[in-house]
């Protein structure tokens, strides 16, 4: 496959890619630390993955195979469009299979299948600052990161328990990376948090509007914050997948009619269809 000759390989010009790679290298060297970068205008609106798409463009090579998911699904508008974008501007192969992909750009999920050392997971991040809701001054949050002064984050969890009886944060659940930096895992469900810990794949996070890149290198400790007497619990709907019968994956609730009918299905469409194919083959 060849890419559209009207574009530089993977859309961004080479000096921009070099600048982003520098930010990525710095981010990998300081796990969980947010590195500012000169985010470019991209041909899609903020909030649709401008940060993720720039990180992907910077790490993409002609031999890479790209998978893009949105809420675990391969066939939503955003995922389809970003795959088409890179097919056209970089001429690379795309896939829906987690196993076949070398780079996976994701919004709001980590694939159910375990990732490998030769894969890179790129997250789209809307709000990179985990302390932002609690401390509105950015200069102050920078300082808190620098001093590892993170008591405030526990105040938020304390408030959750005081109000709801348990930690009610079910997505974007704050994590401590490598025992040093507090990090927002992007709005993935808390269910996915344990997958980040000691993951063999490189994890890169790009926030386009906020102009920040951060990273978790392979095999790095990622711990969800909690209290000794209120430990972290990954939350999932207590059902099995209607399509593949899986009882340990993250589920979406889907309305089937307008009289209250609903089913629960895997949010990771690739994982689900693989299991369905296996079931059919066995029958």
């Amino acid at each position, binding site marked *: 496959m060849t890419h559209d000759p009207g574009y530089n390989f993977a859309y961004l010009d080479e000096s921009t890619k070099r600048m982003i790679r520098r930010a990525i290298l710095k981010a990998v060297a300081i796990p969980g630390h947010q590195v500012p970068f000169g985010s470019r205008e991209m041909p899609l609106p903020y909030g649709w993955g401008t940060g993720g798409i720039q990180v992907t463009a910077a790490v993409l090579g002609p031999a890479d195979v790209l998978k893009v998911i949105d809420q675990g699904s391969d066939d939503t508008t955003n995922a389809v469009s970003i795959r088409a974008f890179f097919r056209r501007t970089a001429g690379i192969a795309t896939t829906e299979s987690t196993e076949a992909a070398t780079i996976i750009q994701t919004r709001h999920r980590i694939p159910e299948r375990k990732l490998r050392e030769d894969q890179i997971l790129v997250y789209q991040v809307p709000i990179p600052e985990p302390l932002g809701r609690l401390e509105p001054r950015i200069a102050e949050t920078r300082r808190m990161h620098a001093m590892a002064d993170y*008591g405030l984050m526990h*105040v938020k969890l304390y408030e959750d328990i005081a109000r709801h009886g348990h930690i009610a944060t079910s997505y974007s659940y704050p994590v401590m990376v490598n025992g040093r930096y507090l990090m927002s895992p992007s709005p993935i469900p808390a269910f996915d948090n344990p997958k980040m810990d000691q993951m063999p794949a490189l994890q890169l996070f790009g926030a386009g509007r906020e102009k920040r890149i951060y990273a978790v290198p392979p095999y790095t400790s990622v711990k969800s914050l909690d209290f000794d007497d209120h430990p972290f619990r990954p939350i999932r709907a207590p059902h099995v997948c209607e399509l593949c019968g899986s009882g340990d994956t993250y589920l979406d609730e889907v309305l089937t009619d307008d009289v209250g009918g609903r089913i629960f299905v895997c949010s990771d469409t690739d994982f689900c269809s693989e299991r369905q194919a296996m079931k059919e083959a066995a029958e």
Partner: protein
Amino acid sequence: MNERSSKTPLLTARDLTLRFGRIAALDGVDLDIHPGEVVAIVGESGSGKTTLLRVLSGLMRPDAGEVSYLGQDVLGMSEAARRRLMRTEWGFVHQNPRDGLRMAVSAGGNIGERLMATGARHYGNIREQASHWLTRVEIDPARMDEVPAKFSGGMQQRLQIARTLVTLPKLVFMDEPTGGLDVSVQARLLDLIRALVADLGLAVLIVTHDIAAARLLAHRMLVMRHGVVVESGLTDRVLDDPQHPYTQLLVSSVLAA
């Protein structure tokens, strides 16, 4: 009072000088605070009281002079070290409770913040401590989960004190803690501060323009004017036998202090 006689001061300041343009906010101020001692700084508005407090607590840098806390150079220490001090051994009570409290966080969370900032990770224990401290500052522990915005001004101020004292600091800076409260509430608050200070053996540096409050709380008193300490000594001595003309004016202008 036997603690006051201990030789080594907790906090020492020497020759502090700070100018705002042509105005000398601090002009060669010396100060010692010993463990368990309550020192009041009094003076009219603009005399440099609050500036002195901010310089001593490391919030502001003076043009010249030195501040040391238990032998450590406060002005020279790293910001990390100063912050650690500020959330463990020091406390700061602001005049306006809104500056010292997180208004959107429940009373329990406000008290727990310093505990969590120093590593407390057991929810049950934090609740217990919060409840204990609410009782100590005469707030019904049943209101632990309410936000301070629902509290009266006096209660907010008491909550701020509880939140500051929960880590048992050695030295507390108070900037007009009774300002903006009506007289009966002020009296109760002063009573409460006096009891807590005696119980915990705190050293307190209190800035006030209220001579009556200073007489009630302070062991020692500094009178400031135009950035200079014009008179200092035991509270009763200064108030009953003022030497400096300005102190005489200050004392005589108070009704039945």
